[in-house]
């Protein structure tokens, strides 16, 4: 990733749209189902047929209150719906029901960690609105500019949509990506949305400007659209920062405009600018009553909050995982749960964490499944960790055993026995083999006695061979040294 050149600073704010996974739409009873045939989940309300009236979905309001609570927002007791007026074919009413002044949530924050440096990103507001329909631009290449006509599917029109707006607190593409990832984790943990970027149930727009370090005035900003992965957001922002600095450094001016990210070329390009400036003529939606979210409602949501990703990571670190591993574990509720249970049952935290984020994840990837599909249990991990701690398995053998367990060959002891990987942990048995080996190599023993430690390696090798590799080499070495009086 590009680094911002010395003497410059970027100022970035992000707007995120999240589709809530309710059963029915925001203002009508049409089902929310994106696998449906086009225009099969539509009704007079979401098609804006004359006389149809919207009624708000209580579950969606509860969803936004949950998001706002998780983002440390003030939940406004009273909030209002507004009409945002504009004309576009995917918007049947010619206005979108949204919020303007008095959004449901304001003044929140997310803390993101980039390279061990925590940054607080303020959340300006979180408001409730409805999604638009989907447009399919038909013609050569599917590009909007070349299309000769457009097909419309209104199944998505009216799906509950939550918009989350940050303060311009973000300074680097890495922070932007970390913010997006953390927001996605939070939304998923809350269970209000699957927040899939590639499918559009979570969408990012980034506002970017640059300025000379040490100045406080904001530069002219551009807005980037069409980033559909965290990586593209990071790349698009990096490109745009570089582009703006280049423009300013060569005496040009940045034009306030919307720019489209092109994943293939790795560049942003200006979208056609509009003839008239944006004027959405917001006014209060007369068809909907004000929202009143009282203390009881707010408290109920607060009490039902699940453990949020940041809390989970902190707990995993407290249990003995390092920050990076805790982050990896926290991304999978299943792995985090296994770690938790195994460590609570006495397994060594670092060992278990390394298996889960290493062998287990790699195994799932190799066989083309998700970790959730694996039949690994916390009991397996506890047993395996105990076998390593007792010296019955070497670290390398433990990984082989783990692979066998993951492949469904049985529990750790059973797999270890079948694969003949159990170490001789009985020091008496090893001492006997060491004595035999030393008896066969008196010259080597003599050298060690006289202070030459070179033959130790050779002798350890002989003992390992005699035990079929099942002795703990460290223990063997100790016994040889002891026998030689060194």
């Amino acid at each position, binding site marked *: 990733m590009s680094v911002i050149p010395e003497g410059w600073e970027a100022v970035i704010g992000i707007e995120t749209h999240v589709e809530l996974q*309710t*059963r*029915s739409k925001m203002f*009508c*009873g*049409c*089902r929310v189902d994106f696998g449906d*045939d*086009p*225009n*099969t*989940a*539509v*009704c*007079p309300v979401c*098609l804006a047929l004359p006389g149809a009236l919207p*009624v*708000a*979905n*209580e*579950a*969606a*309001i509860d969803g936004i209150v949950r998001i706002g609570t998780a983002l440390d927002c003030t939940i406004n007791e*009273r909030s*209002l719906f507004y009409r945002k*007026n*504009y*004309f*576009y*074919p995917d*918007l049947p009413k010619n206005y979108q029901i949204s919020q303007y*002044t*008095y959004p449901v949530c304001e003044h929140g924050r997310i803390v993101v960690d980039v390279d061990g440096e925590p940054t607080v990103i303020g959340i300006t507001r979180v408001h409730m609105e409805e999604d638009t329909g989907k*447009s*399919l*631009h038909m*013609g050569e290449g599917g590009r*909007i500019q070349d*299309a*000769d*006509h*457009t*097909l*419309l*599917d*209104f199944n998505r029109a009216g799906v509950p949509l939550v918009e989350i707006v940050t303060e311009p607190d973000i300074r680097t593409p890495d922070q932007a990506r970390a913010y997006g990832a953390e927001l996605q984790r939070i939304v998923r943990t809350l269970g209000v949305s699957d927040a899939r970027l590639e499918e559009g149930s979570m969408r990012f727009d980034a506002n970017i400007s640059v300025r000379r370090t040490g100045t406080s005035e904001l530069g002219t900003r551009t807005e980037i659209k069409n980033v559909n992965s965290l990586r593209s957001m990071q790349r698009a922002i990096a490109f745009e920062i570089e582009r703006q600095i280049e423009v300013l450094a060569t005496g040009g001016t940045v034009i306030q405009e*919307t720019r489209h990210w092109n994943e293939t070329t790795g560049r942003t390009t200006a*979208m*056609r600018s*509009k003839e*008239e400036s944006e*004027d959405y*003529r917001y006014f*209060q939606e*007369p068809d*909907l*009553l*004000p*929202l*009143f979210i009282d203390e009881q409602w707010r408290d109920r949501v607060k009490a039902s909050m699940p453990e949020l990703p940041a809390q989970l990571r902190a707990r995993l670190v407290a249990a003995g995982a390092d920050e990076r591993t805790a982050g990896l574990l926290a991304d999978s509720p299943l792995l985090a749960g296994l770690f938790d249970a195994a460590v609570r049952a006495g397994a060594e935290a670092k060992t278990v964490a390394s298996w889960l984020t290493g062998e287990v994840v790699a195994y799932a990837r190799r066989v083309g499944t998700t970790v959730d599909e694996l039949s690994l249990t916390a009991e397996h991990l506890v047993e395996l960790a105990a076998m390593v701690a007792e010296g019955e398995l070497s670290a390398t053998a433990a990984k082989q055993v783990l692979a066998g367990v993951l492949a469904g060959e049985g529990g750790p002891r059973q797999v270890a026995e079948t694969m003949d990987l159990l170490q001789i942990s009985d020091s008496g048995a090893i001492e006997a083999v060491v004595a035999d080996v030393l008896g066969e190599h008196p010259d080597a023993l003599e050298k060690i006695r006289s202070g030459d430690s070179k033959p130790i390696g050779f002798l350890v090798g002989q003992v390992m061979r005699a035990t079929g590799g099942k002795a703990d080499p460290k223990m063997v070495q100790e016994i040889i040294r002891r026998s030689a009086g060194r």
Partner: protein
Amino acid sequence: MARRWGSIPPMPVEIDIAKVAALARIALSDEELAAYGAQLGVILEHAERVQALPTDDVEPTSHPLPLVNAFRPDEVRPSLDRDDVLAQAPDAVDGYFRVPQILDGP
């Protein structure tokens, strides 16, 4: 910034009727622009008179009914039949509404 619940951002007294018409995608002749401009001016004047009233002791309202939270449970209701829906449209193909080329985004 302290905001009063229900307070409305100030309205412009002057109104650019041609701009309003363009935003609403309504084509007006010069005569109509003049006529509607005058009519809207009367409405704005009225609103101004109302705004001049002393309302410091009046709790602002955002809706004529003293109600909040008219909700619907999150239940799926039947949608319309697609053929019926598309039959109302000027143009449709393969289950989609079809519209002419779109030049510009929102």
